[in-house]
């Protein structure tokens, strides 16, 4: 299965290749990893990996898997075979609120061309200001909220359309055919 670390754009492929008693053979991004699994009474388990014993536990939520390895916490989103927007060079077709909060400022307008890493909006959540950035170059197609609006987790803030190829850009940045 393919997993994306939430908050990150990198996708990692992990497979359980075989189980033989306590021995679990896995493949992570093409590299074989062998682990030893010892279930615990509370539903967690000890995973023996590279000579270390790491306590693992987790739970499924609606659209992710929450996992801990020792004190380290992770949220993974299973990735379906994605096509569509990403084929056109958009990292994401929209920007959604990463948490519930209040839109303090919109820094772009409909029709604007934005570049990778450009600040788009400022969200206030947990009493701190969080700036949302563009994951790729794009055109702002629609802004779905106004400054001062309260938004819920996952609400679409801005919709994008692909940015037209810039003729001044070098060949290497153009998507391969």
């Amino acid at each position: 299965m393919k997993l994306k670390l939430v908050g990150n754009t990198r996708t990692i492929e992990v497979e359980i290749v075989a189980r033989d008693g306590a021995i679990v053979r896995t493949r992570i991004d093409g590299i074989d990893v062998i682990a030893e699994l010892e279930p615990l009474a509370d539903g967690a388990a000890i995973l023996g990996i590279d000579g270390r014993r790491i306590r693992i536990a987790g739970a499924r939520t609606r659209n992710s898997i929450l996992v801990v390895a020792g004190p380290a916490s992770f949220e993974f989103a299973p990735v379906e075979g994605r096509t569509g927007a990403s084929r056109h060079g958009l990292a994401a077709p929209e920007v959604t609120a990463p948490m519930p909060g209040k839109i303090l400022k919109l820094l772009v307008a409909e029709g604007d061309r934005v570049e990778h890493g450009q600040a788009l909006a400022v969200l206030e959540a947990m009493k701190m200001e969080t700036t949302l950035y563009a994951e790729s170059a794009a055109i702002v197609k629609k802004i779905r909220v106004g400054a001062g609006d309260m938004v819920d987790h996952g609400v679409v803030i801005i919709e994008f359309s692909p940015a037209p190829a810039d003729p001044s850009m070098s060949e290497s940045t153009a998507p391969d055919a």
Partner: protein
Amino acid sequence: MKSRTINKLLVANRGEIALRIIRSARVLGIKTVAVYSEADVGAAHVAAADEARLIGPPDPANSYLNLDAIIAAAQTTKADAIHPGYGFLSERPEFARATEAHGMMFVGPPAGVMAALGDKIAARRIAIDSGVPVVPGVGTGDLATARKFAASAGFPVLVKAAAGGGGRGMRVVNDAAGFAAALEAAAREAQAAFGDGRVFLEKYLARPRHIEIQIFGDHHGTIVALGERECSIQRRHQKLIEESPAPGLPSSMRDRMTEAALKLARAAGYRNAGTAEFLVAGDNFYFLEINARLQVEHPVTELRFGCDLVAEQLRIASGERVAEPSAPRGCAIECRINAEDAAHDFRPAIGRVIKLNLPAGPGVRIDTHLGVGAEVSPYYDSLIAKLICYGSDREQARARMGAALGEFSLVGINNTAAFLRDVVASAAFARGDLSTRFLEENFPHWTAAGDDLNAALIAAALIAGGILDGARPVVGSVTPNGARNDAGGACMRTPWTELAGFELWGRR
């Protein structure tokens, strides 16, 4: 002053600190009243108190910052004292004033003292008048004055909120270009957080240490100091790790800082618990501010001095004399575990506690309101647990902290425990080479260790495959007033309402 007994204490706060105050009050035989917002129905502090009163909706402006609702809750429950905790209304003079005006005791300094010290611009003036050194700066955020100050002192400069605390409304400005925007953003954040948009400027020191002195004053004019706490490990001016004693601090320096703190407290007519904060650079120290309340990191002092600062606050509020502090011993370190994703720019995390394993053992204390089913909502700050470890020396305290953080395991809310473990284990921390730039210099881009990531990926695959338990415990969901507390969404559902999910992903 004549002693008055506190019979019933209202705790005007939430989370770990409300729980911690209730515990101390109970030991003293004082009845407690909790207040809570709709987001905190069923929270630990509500369960711990003798009585609880709903004071409003989740938004803190309408609940934990709602002075009238809290005073009304105290009146209807016949409380005779209010403890404000930290944050929220704790440093609002009008809250102390309203408490006293309604015939109740306020567990903290008098309103007038709080007004003078809580205003950081006024506090600077008191320090200057008392001959205590302050960081070079100007007491206004006026753009023209700000530009003039920056031109003479040089960049970077720090914009701070007059009413600020916890890093809110604070901005570092590196050049003239970002000045106006930084002043505006700081003022806006300060206005939103404190209802007071005034800001002022200080020269930004390059690699200072942040060291503070705990003070305590009573109604009889006695003021004592209870040692220092080093709070240099900060991220965006939010303290993450605190310890006492400050490693390598010369005792002559400690004495001078203690003297300055006592001088300030006397000049201000201070009463109850407070903290004088200083920046230390080389052989110099500079007064920053006095926090007129209990600090988040107070347990560090408690472990070294073998005392209960909340109990001491309650005794002093009722007119008793401050106890002469015993000699401090050993070393104590505190780590603040926050609901944040340390690997992704410390983005705030929310959710519900699904599984929880808390550390224990000799010299290990954990102050937390978390339990299975507890919810971390977006409305309040991200502190979810304080882990405090005591050792006969710093190495023992540090080793205990490392081991305790290794035991901490929380499924449901991304948190900073693994990051803190790595910081505590680092060579720079072990050497005690501390400054407020420590994290920028040593941990600019933290990610979890490769083994941990691999173990987590395998765990996710095992859960998806139904080999490892990925079920969520069923948590009750109906509030006393009949409203469903729904923010956690899926976690509230039972297998009976989600048969498909149960069959697909349940334990086989």
